[in-house]
């Protein structure tokens, strides 16, 4: 079997162009999910019992169902729900045309990432020894001050490897956005592939682009972790 190198060379830039959409989807979901996930983690640790229960159920719902299912569910549900709302408001908008599926993808991946981050932040905050808070209170800081200056900076370092994992998984996970007709790396690769039946070549291109993206992300996180975690001293 021969690889069609020419086709691969031609397709690579097109697939690479999809990296923009993939990264937009990833970053947007991540940036939306970070504050919400953090907030849910704080609720899990300090909120009232009812709220804690709600957050716990939310997390186990998201973690306990396949993301493909969540995508299909939301993609069939969300537009119709929005449509009902818009109709109720009496607006003359056709939701099915007006909203780029990209935004549905953002919603799905944000919902998913929030749940993952809530767990990560919860365990990271929990991992900081109680003595840190007590020492802060004892020198006259408020608990909020101790949180902001001592606990959270340390918890972030603890959370960094998991956030890196979540980000990489998110990049890979967004490949499912083609189910919602979003033109990301995967979607472009599939279209190119079916064009001349050069499936293998197209998928190798796709493979390569994901590999590069994920490697860059991991290097980035490694650098950030080294920087904000400098206080831990020399470690491998």
């Amino acid at each position, binding site marked *: 079997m021969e690889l069609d190198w020419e086709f691969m060379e031609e397709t690579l830039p097109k697939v690479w162009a999809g990296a923009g959409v993939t990264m937009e989807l990833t970053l947007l979901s991540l940036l939306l999910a970070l504050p919400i996930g953090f907030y849910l983690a704080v609720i899990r640790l300090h909120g009232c019992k009812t709220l804690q229960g709600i957050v716990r159920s939310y997390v186990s719902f998201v973690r306990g169902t396949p993301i493909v299912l969540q995508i299909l569910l939301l993609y069939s549900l969300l537009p119709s729900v929005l449509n009902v709302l818009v109709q109720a408001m009496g607006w003359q908008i056709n939701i099915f045309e007006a909203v780029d599926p990209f935004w549905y993808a953002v919603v799905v991946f944000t919902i998913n990432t929030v749940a993952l981050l809530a767990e990560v932040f919860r365990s990271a905050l929990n991992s900081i020894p109680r003595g840190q808070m007590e*020492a802060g209170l004892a020198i*006259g*800081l408020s608990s909020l001050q101790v949180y902001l200056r001592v606990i959270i900076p340390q918890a972030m370092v603890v959370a960094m490897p998991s956030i890196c994992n979540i980000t990489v998984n998110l990049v890979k996970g967004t490949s499912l956005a083609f189910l919602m007709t979003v033109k990301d790396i995967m979607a472009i690769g599939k279209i190119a592939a079916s064009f001349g039946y050069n499936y293998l070549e197209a998928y190798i291109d796709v493979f390569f682009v994901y590999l590069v993206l994920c490697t860059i992300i991991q290097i980035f996180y490694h650098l950030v972790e080294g920087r904000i975690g400098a206080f831990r001293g020399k470690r491998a």
Partner: protein
Amino acid sequence: MLMSIRGVSKSFNGAEILKNVNMDIDQGDVVVILGPSGSGKTTFLRCLNFLEQADGGTMEFHGEKLQLASASKQAIADIRKKTAFVFQNYNLFANKTALENVTLGLTAGRGISKREAREIGLEALQKVGMLERAEYYPSQLSGGQQQRVGIARAIAVKPDVILFDEPTSALDPELVGEVLQVMKSLAQEEGITMIVVTHEMKFAQDVATHVVFMADGVVVEEGSAEDIFSHPKEARTRQFLQRILPEQFEMAALI
């Protein structure tokens, strides 16, 4: 009288850990608290700066009296600003350098400017012999060095009283001396008021103005170091000292 503590009680899960503990502290006093493990020494200290909430008891501090069980947030914040705590396991802020550990209570806690805080911080580090390590993180310091930074953090805020909870018991034996030396000079040269839970008898004998022996949540006996070590009245005190200071105790018994 700097601090007058009356009737402190505290239970955990129905077990009475502190039963009506009283203590008076004058300016410049070094009160050493001794007692077997589990007698409630740590709990008592923690009740004084509200790391633990006592079930009952009062504290008069600078002429202001407050209920330990129901002090307002504001009153608690005030007490914490006038006291400092040195922990058994140091509890330095892991993400802060030695100097930042010392200055945080000044800048964030008391609104002192960064520059002034830095000066006070360096001076405090100097007093504990840690000036050269000002920019080190706790992870880069030995236990003894960490504890000295812990002490610098406590003295930097110029508290009226410093509470020490077994400040040397987590240290390797060869590092104990450096920390005790620092505490001794703070007491004798700076006249800092301290309440110290420790089993370092030499320190108690040399530095304590007052020794309190606690067992099972009550003050069994108190007096000068001389009183307690050489002429203990209570059987429980004698038993305890016999275990801690066997040689000396036998000597004393012979005389």
